[in-house]
C-alpha cells in the first residue's frame, strides 16, 4: 500500500531530479565552493538557481514553519528530503549561520516581529549572518566577555571588540553577545542583532595558517543598536547563547560526515598509490588506517542520524551536542590527515598543474580549528563528564 510518505518521497525525488542543476550534484571541494547568499553574493554556476528553487518550497529550512519561509515538513518528511538529496548527491543549497545557529534561537526566543523580519530572509539567503561571541580575553571562558551595551533609552550604545568572527567581512548582520550588567558574569549578558553596515562597525580579517582569512576581528565603536533588536529579556542573553551553541555544535559535528557522494578520500588514495594485483590499496598500512577510519566514520553517520531523530522526539540529552561536536571534529581532523597521507607530495602542492590554491593543504590546515572553535574538545569533554556522566567537580 502506498503511504503518504511514499508519495512524498516519490514527488520529492521527481522534483529534485527536475530542479537540481548538474553542477550542484558534485561534492563541495572547498569552502569557497559553497553557497552562502547574502547582499553581495558570490555565486558559482548553478548555485543561485538551486538556492532559489529550494527556497521557493521552503526547503532551505524544510522543518521551519511556512509562515517564516520554511517548508513546514514533519521530521519524517525532512528525513526523506535529506535522503533523496543524498541519493542524487545534491549539495546543500545554502550554507548559513542564519539557518544553523540564529534561526533556531529566534524560533525559540524571538518575538513575532523579529521572527517575521529575519527568518524569511534567512530562508531565502538574502541576508548573511555572522556570530559575535568570542573576545580576545573570552574564548573558552565565553561568559567573561566585556563588550558593553550602555542603555540609552530606546537603544543601546555598543562598544568593544569581538574576535574569530567567521566571515564578518562578508556578513550583512551580526548576532552578538554584549554585557548589559556587570553584577553577574552570566546573568549580565544580552543577545542583540545589528546591521554590519551600522556606523561604528569595522572588521579586519585574520590571516590563518591555511592562508585564508575566514575569521575576522570585529570592532564596535559607539554603535547604535535599537532595543527592539534585543532577543529575549535584558541580561538573559546567556540562555539564548547556550541554546544556540548547542545548534552550532550540531552543525560543526556534521563535518565528520564528509561530503555527499562517492568517497573522495578513497578515490584519492587509489589515484595516488594504486591497487595491487589483489585489488587492495598498495600501501597496506594506509589501507588499514583508511578502513578503520571508515568504520568510525560510518558509525558516526548512524550516530548523527540517531541524534537528529532523538532531538526531534525530544529524547536527546541536552548535553549530547557536546559529544557530537567532540567526536565529529576529531573525526574530521583524522579524515584530513588521511587525505594528506593519501595525496603524498601532490597534496602539498600549493600551485601546480593538479592543484590551485593549495585546496587539499588548506582544507587540512583549516580543520585544525575544528576542535578549537565552538568550544574546544577539552571543554566538550568537561561538559560530557559533568553533565552526562555526572562526575564530581574538582
Amino acid at each position, binding site marked *: 500500500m502506498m503511504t503518504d510518505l511514499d508519495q512524498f518521497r516519490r514527488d520529492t525525488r521527481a522534483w529534485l531530479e527536475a530542479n537540481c542543476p548538474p553542477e550542484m550534484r558534485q561534492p563541495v571541494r572547498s569552502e569557497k565552493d559553497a553557497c552562502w547568499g547574502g547582499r553581495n553574493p558570490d555565486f558559482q554556476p548553478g548555485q543561485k538557481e538551486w538556492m532559489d528553487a529550494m527556497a521557493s518550497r521552503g526547503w532551505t529550512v524544510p522543518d521551519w514553519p511556512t509562515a517564516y519561509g520554511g517548508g513546514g515538513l514533519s521530521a519524517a518528511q525532512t528525513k526523506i528530503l535529506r535522503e533523496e538529496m543524498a541519493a542524487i548527491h545534491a549539495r546543500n543549497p545554502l550554507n548559513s549561520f542564519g539557518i544553523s545557529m540564529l534561526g533556531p534561537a529566534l524560533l525559540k526566543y524571538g518575538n513575532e516581529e523579529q521572527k517575521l523580519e529575519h527568518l524569511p530572509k534567512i530562508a531565502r539567503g538574502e541576508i548573511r549572518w555572522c556570530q559575535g561571541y568570542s573576545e580576545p580575553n573570552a574564548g573558552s571562558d565565553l561568559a567573561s566577555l566585556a563588550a558593553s551595551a550602555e542603555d540609552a533609552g530606546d537603544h543601546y550604545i555598543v562598544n568593544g571588540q569581538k574576535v574569530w568572527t567567521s566571515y564578518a567581512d562578508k556578513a550583512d548582520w551580526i548576532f552578538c553577545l554584549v554585557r548589559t550588567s556587570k553584577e553577574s558574569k552570566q546573568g549580565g549578558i544580552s543577545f542583540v542583532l545589528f546591521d554590519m553596515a551600522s556606523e561604528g562597525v569595522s572588521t579586519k580579517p585574520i590571516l590563518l595558517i591555511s592562508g585564508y582569512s575566514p575569521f575576522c576581528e570585529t570592532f564596535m565603536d559607539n554603535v547604535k543598536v535599537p532595543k527592539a533588536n534585543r532577543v529575549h529579556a535584558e541580561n538573559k542573553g546567556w540562555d539564548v547563547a547556550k541554546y544556540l551553541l548547542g545548534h552550532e555544535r550540531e552543525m560543526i559535528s556534521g563535518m565528520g560526515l564528509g561530503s555527499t557522494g562517492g568517497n573522495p578520500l578513497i578515490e584519492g588514495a587509489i589515484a595516488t598509490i594504486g591497487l595491487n594485483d589483489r585489488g587492495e590499496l598498495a600501501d597496506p598500512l594506509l589501507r588499514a588506517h583508511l578502513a*578503520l577510519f571508515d*568504520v568510525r566514520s*560510518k558509525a558516526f553517520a548512524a550516530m548523527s542520524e540517531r541524534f537528529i531523530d532523538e532531538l526531534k522526539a525530544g529524547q536527546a540529552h541536552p548535553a549530547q551536542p557536546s559529544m557530537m561536536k567532540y567526536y565529529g571534529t576529531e573525526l574530521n581532523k583524522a579524515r584530513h590527515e588521511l587525505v594528506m597521507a593519501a595525496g603524498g607530495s601532490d597534496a602539498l602542492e600549493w600551485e601546480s598543474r593538479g592543484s590551485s590554491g593549495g585546496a587539499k593543504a588548506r582544507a587540512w590546515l583549516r580543520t585544525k580549528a575544528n576542535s578549537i572553535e565552538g568550544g574546544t574538545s577539552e571543554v566538550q569533554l568537561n561538559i560530557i563528564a559533568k553533565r552526562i*556522566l555526572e*562526575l564530581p567537580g*574538582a
Partner: protein
Amino acid sequence: MPLYLNDEQVMLRDTTKQFVAEHAPVSHLRALRDANDSTGFSRDLWKQFAEMGFTSILIGEDHGGLGLGHVEAGVVLEEIGRNLSPSPFLTTAVAAVEALKGTAHAERWFPGIVAGDTVAALAIDERAKHGDAIAMTAERSGNGFKLSGEKRFVTHAHVADLLIVAARTSGADVDDAGVTLFAVPKDADGLSHETERLADSSLAARSRFDRVEVDADAVIGEVDNGRVVLERLLAAGRTGASAEMLGVGGGAMDMTVAYMKERKQFGAPIGSFQALQHRAAHLYSEMEVARAAVLKAQQLLDADDARADEAVSVAKAMTGLAATLAVQEGIQMHGGIGMTDEYDIGFYMKRARVLAEMFGDSNFHADRLARKAGY
C-alpha cells in the same frame, strides 16, 4: 524509522533488564565457573528464557514464536552482555534460528527452541581467526553426504542438540559457490568434540567430523548454494554479538564511572580529576557511536534493506573497538583492585575479548568494508 527504541521495545528492555539482573547477574557466572560446571550455562535459566518468550523472539508466529526482529533480540542480548550471563541465546535463538528460518528444518527444531529445551551450536570456523575460506568437505554418498574435517570455536558443541555445519560440496577453499550448510544431529556417528574452556570460562569445542554420514534432508537451503544461508546466519550472529558487546562495554563503563565517583585518592574522588574525566567522556562517546551503529544494523536487517550487510560490519567493528576500550579503561581506572579475581571488572575484559573474536573481529570487518568499497 527513527533511530531509537519504540515504546514496545523500551518496555521489553525494562522487563529484560530486571529479569536478567535478578536471575543471571555476574555472580551467576562466577558460581558456574567456581563449580567448574561442565555444561557452561544453566539449563534452568535457558528454560526461564523460554518462559519469558526470549527464545521465541525471532521465530515466526506460525511456529509459535513472537515474530519480532533483531532490534528486540538485541535488547535481550545487551542485558545478557551487561550481566555476563552465560547462555546459548546468541548461537541458538539468534544465529541458528535465522539459518533455519524458512527451511524444512524449522518444523523439526523450532518447537524445542521455543520451549527452551534445544541448544544449537555453530560449526563454521576452521582457523584461529574467523574467515571466509571453508575446507571441510561434504562428499556425496548414496542418498546423502559424508562430512570430513575439523571445526573450531564451536561454543556449546558438547551439549548441543544439533550442529549447523558449513562444508564444501565442490570447488576450492575460498570459492563462494560450492558451500553447503547441514543440520547435523548430536548423535551422528563419527562426530566427536574436544571441549576447551576459554578465557571467559565459557566452553567451546574443536569438533571433528570423521566421515559423518547425513541424509540429503540434512541440507539447509540448497546444495552448493549454502553461502546464502551462511550469510543470513552470520548477519544475525554478528549483529547479535555486537549488541551483546554493547552490554559488556556499557556494563564495564557503568561500573567504572560509579567507581570513579566513590574511590578517593589525594583526598578527592578520582572522578573529579580532569585527566580521568576526559578519558571517561571519550569512552562514553565511543560507546554511544557504537550503540547507534548497532541499532542501525538491526533496523536495516529487520527491514531487509540491501544496506544491512555494510551496516552489520560497521556495527561489529565499531563495538569491538568501543567495548575493548571500555574494558581496558575499566581495569586501569580501577587500579590494583581491577586486577583481582574477586572484583568483577576482569570478567568483563574476558567476555569482551571472546565476543570481539566471534564472527570476525574489528580488523576482519574493516577489511571486509574496504574490500567491498574496492580498495
